[in-house]
């Protein structure tokens, strides 16, 4: 894992001091709320329906067990004993007092963590593959590149007042576990024919009210030009991205309106000029960062044998563990989606336990997934039963990874000031319905995602089944959509037809699931069947 040196620490400490000064000026009335807003946002502090919400960055979703303990302590000290892991691989706290926020940031800084640029119209926390460093199919660990970009994008003097927020994802395998092409810039580290590593840049993807899949803008940027190319992409956006309409201000609209070719031409022109400015860190810096991401000290004799006599354990192993590049190891996914629970929430006690388990079973490392679960990336197969036993006792042993119970949901109208409808109760009811009818396992992989407003924080456009909550004349109404995917076969879901009320949407999801069960052939997943048979049979069952 990356560790701060004196420079990184100084930057984070300086930010805490700066924010403390800004909060003092705000509390003294020297800053208006309008002036303070962008400053607090760049430190992750939102004003929500009931209180301030603070979002802590977990760069590329990687944290140590010790850091997990700090997150737990913060939940206790400054919040109400829980935190919410988000689709940006971050954690949010929902009940923060403004006057205490600088102390909270200081606690984070002591553990090499921060909330820098987790909101505001700037470059946000960079996300990545939650199996990075463990996956057998990656050409390299993508996280050193993400860390290089984290440092470049932190406190960037030119790009802190962009037209709109800006999100990067960096992956390094063909299988996409990070929704890469649904980001403002998606980078895939690739190997060319000569065996050299480089970066493929996809620019202009995103969800929100106008979902778009990012087109490929450059198929190979050499690693010693990575930062310069990113700078060129951002400069064209900062200069020409729309600022007249907040809903048309994301880079996807610029790329769409200019056309990929013209946007690319402008980027290449800017890139040529920027190359003369020598702004690229030397390869030695990338090598320095890579040193932190070496393999842990695996047991080379680790056994792959497993005692499957306990059926509950066997089910969890089949559902919630993933193959590892190292023989005798797997990556284990801790579901934060217990039946009827709030997706992504974890209590102080659960976070402390996960911190302990990361230390004991996974070389003190954990990951946050964009699907709001936690990964222990490097677990010995022979330790799995002991791990599962402890998880299960703490309500963290739910075997539902990528199943219909593993729902992504935004905080919705229960917390968020932008929301039009509640998301959490819908997620809870669907989770309970499918636990009760026992169809969850039978359905297999079925990604269900719920957003409480058109901003799409719950990724509903990318769900095999997506649900969008809207406000219809003061009543919550839920639109159903089918056929989205955030994986390497990225696609956007299509709306089935008229929306449903709260009870109706739960029934509608079951109806859609039943259409699939009746029509599926062989090993088809829901999304495969949908792509084969199309929308018509689903419409017929829902509205016919």
């Amino acid at each position, binding site marked *: 894992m990356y560790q701060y040196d004196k*420079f990184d620490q*100084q930057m984070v400490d*300086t930010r805490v001091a700066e924010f403390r000064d800004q909060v003092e000026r705000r509390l003294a009335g020297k800053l208006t709320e309008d002036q303070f807003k962008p400053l607090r946002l760049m430190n992750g502090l939102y004003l929500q329906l009931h209180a301030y919400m603070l979002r802590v960055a977990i760069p590329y979703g990687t944290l140590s067990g010790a850091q997990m303990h700090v997150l737990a302590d913060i939940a206790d000290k400054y919040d109400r004993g829980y935190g919410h892991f988000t689709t940006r691989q971050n954690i949010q706290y929902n009940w923060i007092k403004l006057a205490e926020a600088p102390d909270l940031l200081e606690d984070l800084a002591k553990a090499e963590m921060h909330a820098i640029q987790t909101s505001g119209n700037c470059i946000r926390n960079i996300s990545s593959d939650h199996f990075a460093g463990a996956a057998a199919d990656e050409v390299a660990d993508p996280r050193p590149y993400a860390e290089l970009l984290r*440092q470049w994008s932190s406190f960037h003097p*030119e790009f802190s*007042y962009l037209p709109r927020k800006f999100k990067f994802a960096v992956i390094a395998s063909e299988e996409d576990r990070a929704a890469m092409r649904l980001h403002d810039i998606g980078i895939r580290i690739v190997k060319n024919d000569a065996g050299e590593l480089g970066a493929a840049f996809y620019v202009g993807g995103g969800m929100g009210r106008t979902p778009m899949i990012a087109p490929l803008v450059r198929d190979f940027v050499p690693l010693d030009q990575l930062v310069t190319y990113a700078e060129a992409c951002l400069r064209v956006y900062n200069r020409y991205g729309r*600022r007249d309409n907040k809903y048309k201000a994301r880079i996807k609209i610029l790329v769409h309106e200019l056309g990929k070719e013209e946007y690319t031409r402008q980027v290449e022109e800017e890139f040529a000029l920027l190359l003369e400015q020598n702004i690229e860190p030397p390869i030695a810096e990338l090598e320095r960062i890579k040193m932190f991401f070496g393999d842990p000290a695996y047991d080379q004799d680790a056994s792959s044998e497993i005692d499957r006599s306990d059926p509950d354990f066997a089910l969890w192993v089949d559902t919630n563990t993933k193959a590892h590049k190292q023989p005798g190891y797997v990556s284990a996914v801790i579901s934060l989606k217990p039946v009827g629970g709030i997706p992504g929430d974890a209590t102080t006690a659960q976070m402390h336990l996960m911190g302990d388990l990361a230390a004991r079973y996974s070389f003190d490392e954990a990951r946050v997934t964009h699907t709001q679960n936690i990964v222990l990336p490097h677990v010995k197969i022979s330790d799995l039963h002991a791990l599962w036993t402890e998880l299960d006792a703490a309500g963290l042993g739910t075997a539902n990874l990528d199943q219909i119970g593993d729902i992504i949901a935004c905080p919705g109208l229960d917390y968020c000031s932008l929301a039009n409808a509640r998301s959490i109760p819908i997620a809870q009811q669907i989770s309970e319905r499918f636990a009760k009818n026992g169809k969850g396992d039978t359905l297999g992989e079925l990604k269900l995602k719920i957003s409480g407003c058109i901003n799409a924080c719950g990724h509903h456009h990318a769900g095999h089944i997506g649900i969008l909550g809207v406000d219809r004349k003061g009543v919550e109404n839920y639109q159903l959509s089918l056929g989205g995917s955030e994986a390497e076969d990225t696609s956007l879901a299509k709306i089935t037809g008229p929306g449903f009320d709260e009870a109706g949407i739960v029934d509608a999801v079951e109806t859609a699931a039943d259409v699939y069960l009746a029509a599926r052939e062989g090993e088809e997943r829901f999304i495969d069947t949908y792509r084969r048979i199309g929308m018509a049979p689903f419409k017929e069952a829902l509205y016919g």
Partner: protein
Amino acid sequence: MVELLRLRKDETHSEAAVTVEAFLGRTNAGAVRIEPGEDGRELIPHLDRIRLVEVNFPVFGDGRGYSAARILREAGFTGEIRAVGDVLVDQIAYMRRCGFDAFAPDTPLNADDAKNALERWGEVYQPTTDGRRPIWAQRHE
């Protein structure tokens, strides 16, 4: 309170700035004002006779002016670049990194707050034309 904060030692250029359009249409102006959305690159052929570029920020959240200033510095401009309009003390450190060396906000700056803001960041992650050595350069000395 400070009406005009200047970080340069030469004499203040008092000529009123003209618009980019007016500047390009006449030959003797030495001061020009860039509005958001205007392409500062159009000035590059004329940099040798420009003494002052004002970059206007009608609202502080419109960050186009940061790119405008940096582009002029990257093209070698050594005259004054002055941020005018809705320029707040919490913005001036980044502005300075992008090449601004004068600030004339609508609301005058508190001198102490401005000094604190400009001195706060001892290190930087990115190189710009301000000549500061980024952290990565210091790591590999």
